[in-house]
């Protein structure tokens, strides 16, 4: 099936149309796969032999004579373990020897040339496994069927008499055995069966998937040999340091290149775009040193008048503005609250946050004649391809993207690809020279696509018995869609900012039923660029909903867990996860003196999450998080050990945001420039984390993001339990806890 889709991830690409093939794995004989200059796309453990010795069974599986199975993974690996998980799913259906599995990554150009045989490459929204599990498993199964068929053909026996296990094919009747490596060449010449016709295994029978396999990509992260994009070396390569106008929306007026002429290693200072200048030199340190010395004149523009205080006022106005988008209106919440026996009200706020990936933005671009290439840590190699094509002016089939594993992504390196555009603009001015652009940490902090800022007012009505009868939620804040794709939300209707509050089942459903509910969003945009940030809007929205639940429970004189349970009867999956966390954490049982519990549940990215936090607050107001229990139903658990790693990581990411994370605006620019002011949690503050995985096997949910959102509210609720004083504004570093 052919279909036409709009764009492939970048905002300015909506006009560009791509003809794409069905995402299902097809057959296809081996095509010449050209290894890119400088670095092979294959995983470092791939150790590919010569191209002649490899047989491409289908798009997903290649087999070498020594029985090595090379599994193709097209989603980006940025630490989240998707590479290993997808390989497990293919290997499970392939019935190969897991100890002989390696991986490699097709390029975006190869995907384009083969009519998107590998489907979408974008890796965000915790979709890496859940949206490709079906076709990669079918790809593995089809390859297995072809390999077994080749053996049957060789033996001249019916294929149904052959069995396979661990990459060894057996014909019991004649007591013959062979291996995948021996029949791969013949298998590659067979016509592939229709992937849709394949019967996939019952996940309960899995032997490789579902098991806590070791990651495939650990070894070279232990000895410095893993090459990140920032580490690339190429013959003739030059390095670029860059500076964009520190005020968002400001412009570059001029720069005085003569002042850096003669500085060591400097080649040139160049205009990159209307707002940006770069210095190109032999080493990055020389480029950065000269950039620091370069006199630059900016036109800071209207944004220079903006500050955090002004932005906060604008959001506050949105909380009570007459007009707001009504997303959910069930019953008459305002009337019910007015007439309620008891009324509870609170206003919460969350700040802008930077991603602060450990590896700063960088990439290397080379433009020679009619060919453009980029070596890039990207969450969306097809968006990188589109950005390279647009900025270089070269057609897609003359562009190539060599995706390199990311030193952290968290949503920063997805559709926008600003750094690819910049490097391309520079490389156009240095024909034939590979240009490695590296952002300083300061540039990275100054020009992120920040997690959007918002405030939320909530009001609830309780009846005489303490039952919550009505809820009014009004979020006022910035919209990601309004920044990335303004026409999609021109009328202020933006469901995305209400992520986690949806009525509809599936991706981010609210786990409560209220007799009366009014859910509103007042869009209040700023001049600050915003974008996805690991868990984006579930993080803020879970804080609002779940902290308010505890305030309402206290007003009702109810236990926070029991109060929630009473509202969750129509949401058994949410409730089961909440109960799993509560049970593991011994909710209701006595704690050591000074330790207090908080609980929270929420849904996002197709998965159900809950957390119980145990904290203490000293008499000076110092917080310590001792233990966190997190429960997750992600439907299918492909690698429990890696799921636990993601949950542990989500605690660190979530706690950093809870305790410290804040980007503030002064004179139109970001104040926090580096880790001295944008504080990140350290090991000493890491609590004991216990992960409870409760898969129900009836859906596929995400893993990388869902549990972050329950970290902050469970901790904030534990603080409330400890102090009796609710915390309503993040980060906690600004709050007096006692």
């Amino acid at each position, binding site marked *: 099936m052919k279909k036409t889709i709009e764009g492939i991830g970048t905002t300015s690409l909506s006009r560009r149309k791509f003809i794409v093939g069905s995402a299902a794995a097809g057959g296809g004989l081996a095509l010449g796969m050209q290894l890119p200059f400088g670095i092979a796309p294959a995983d470092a453990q791939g150790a590919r032999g010569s191209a002649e010795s490899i047989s491409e069974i289908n798009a997903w599986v290649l087999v070498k004579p020594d029985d090595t199975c090379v599994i193709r993974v097209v989603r980006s690996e940025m630490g989240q373990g998707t590479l290993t998980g997808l390989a497990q799913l293919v290997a499970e259906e392939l019935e190969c020897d897991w100890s002989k599995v390696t991986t490699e990554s097709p390029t975006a150009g190869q995907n384009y040339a083969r009519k998107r045989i590998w489907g979408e490459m974008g890796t965000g929204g915790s979709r890496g496994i859940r949206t490709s599990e079906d076709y990669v498993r079918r790809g593995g199964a089809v390859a297995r069927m072809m390999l077994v068929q080749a053996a049957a053909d060789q033996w001249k026996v019916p294929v149904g008499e052959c069995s396979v296990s661990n990459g060894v094919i057996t014909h019991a009747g004649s007591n013959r055995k062979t291996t995948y490596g021996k029949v791969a060449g013949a298998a590659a010449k067979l016509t592939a069966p229709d992937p849709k016709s394949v019967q996939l295994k019952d996940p309960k029978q899995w032997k490789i998937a579902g098991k806590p396999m070791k990651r495939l990509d650990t070894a070279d992260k*232990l000895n410095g040999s893993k090459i990140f994009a920032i580490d690339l070396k190429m013959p003739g390569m030059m390095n670029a340091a860059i500076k964009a106008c520190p005020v968002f929306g400001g412009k570059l007026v001029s720069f005085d290149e003569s002042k850096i002429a003669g500085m060591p290693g400097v080649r040139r200072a160049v205009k990159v775009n209307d707002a940006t200048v770069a210095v190109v030199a032999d080493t990055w340190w020389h480029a950065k040193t000269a950039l620091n010395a370069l006199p630059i004149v900016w036109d800071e523009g209207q944004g220079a008048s903006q500050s955090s205080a002004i932005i906060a006022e604008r959001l506050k106005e949105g909380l009570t503005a007459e007009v707001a988008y009504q997303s959910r209106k069930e019953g008459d919440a305002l009337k019910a609250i007015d007439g309620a026996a008891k009324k509870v009200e609170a206003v919460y706020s969350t700040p802008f946050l930077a991603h602060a990936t450990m590896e700063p933005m960088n990439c290397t671009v080379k433009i020679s004649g009619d060919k453009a290439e980029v070596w890039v840590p990207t969450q969306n190699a097809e968006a990188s391809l589109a950005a390279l094509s647009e900025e270089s002016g070269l057609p897609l089939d003359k562009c190539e993207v060599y995706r390199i594993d990311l030193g952290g992504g968290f949503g920063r390196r997805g559709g926008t690809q600003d750094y690819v555009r910049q490097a391309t603009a520079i490389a156009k001015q240095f024909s034939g020279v590979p240009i490695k652009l590296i952002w300083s940490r300061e540039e990275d902090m100054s020009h992120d696509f920040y997690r959007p800022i918002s405030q939320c007012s909530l009001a609830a009505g309780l009846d005489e018995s303490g039952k919550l009868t009505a809820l009014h939620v009004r979020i006022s804040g910035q919209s990601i869609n309004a920044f990335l794709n303004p026409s999609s939300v021109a009328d202020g209707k933006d469901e995305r900012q209400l992520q986690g509050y949806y009525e509809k089942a599936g991706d981010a459903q609210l786990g409560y039923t209220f007799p009366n509910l009014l859910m509103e969003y007042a869009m209040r945009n700023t001049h600050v660029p915003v974008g996805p940030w690991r868990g984006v809007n579930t993080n803020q929205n879970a804080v609002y909903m779940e902290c308010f639940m505890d305030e309402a429970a206290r007003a009702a004189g109810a236990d926070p867990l029991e109060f929630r349970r009473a509202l969750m009867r129509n949401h058994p999956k949410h409730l089961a996860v909440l109960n799993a966390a509560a049970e593991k954490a011994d909710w209701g049982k006595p704690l050591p003196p000074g330790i207090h519990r908080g609980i929270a549940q929420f849904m996002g990215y197709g998965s159900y999450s809950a957390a119980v936090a145990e904290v203490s607050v000293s008499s000076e107001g110092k917080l310590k998080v001792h233990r966190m229990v997190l429960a997750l139903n992600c439907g299918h658990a492909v690698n429990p050990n890696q799921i636990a790693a993601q949950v542990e990581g989500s605690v660190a990411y979530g706690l950093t945001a809870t305790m410290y994370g804040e980007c503030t605006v002064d004179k139109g620019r970001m104040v926090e420039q580096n880790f001295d002011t944008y504080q990140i949690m350290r090991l000493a503050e890491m609590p004991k984390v216990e992960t409870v995985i409760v898969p129900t096997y009836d859906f596929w949910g995400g893993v990388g993001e869902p549990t972050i959102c329950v970290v902050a509210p469970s901790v904030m609720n534990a603080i409330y339990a400890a102090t009796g004083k609710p915390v309503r504004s993040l980060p906690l570093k600004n709050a007096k806890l006692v």
Partner: protein
Amino acid sequence: MAKLNINGKVRDVQVEADTPLLWVIRENVGLTGTKYGCGVAQCGACSVHINGNVMRSCSIPVGSIKAGDKIVTIEGLSATSSHPVQKAWAQLDVPQCGYCQSGQIMAAAALLNKNPNPSDKDIDDAMTNICRCGTYARIRDAVRIAAGTSRPARASAGDDSVTTA
């Protein structure tokens, strides 16, 4: 011109004296396992050993390195990833993205070299490098394993770090 003893090999580098050691190691010597994260000695991605002490190389001018100073980078920690810290890291699958892990491993190796039996507080005090993926829990466990003071390995029977229903 500077003479640097890195991983037991003396190298001459032609570089301005105020260049941070990190960038000399990465760009002039060509060893890229040592990473740039902040440039202000906050994150520790650039950690190396100088005469056995863990140091943040982004904030050390190469000109301040004395003749005879012995610098060890992640590439020089062991020839075959056989250092107890590297083995413990492998055992627990500590790295996620891996970008900060060279620095984490160098910090842990320096800690255990000076203090073979660190207490939990010693580990907290010594391991101050930033990890954005949030591998801290596994780093802590891996340091204990490398020190030989560990509980049973994670995700095995009796361990409560992960439970699957």
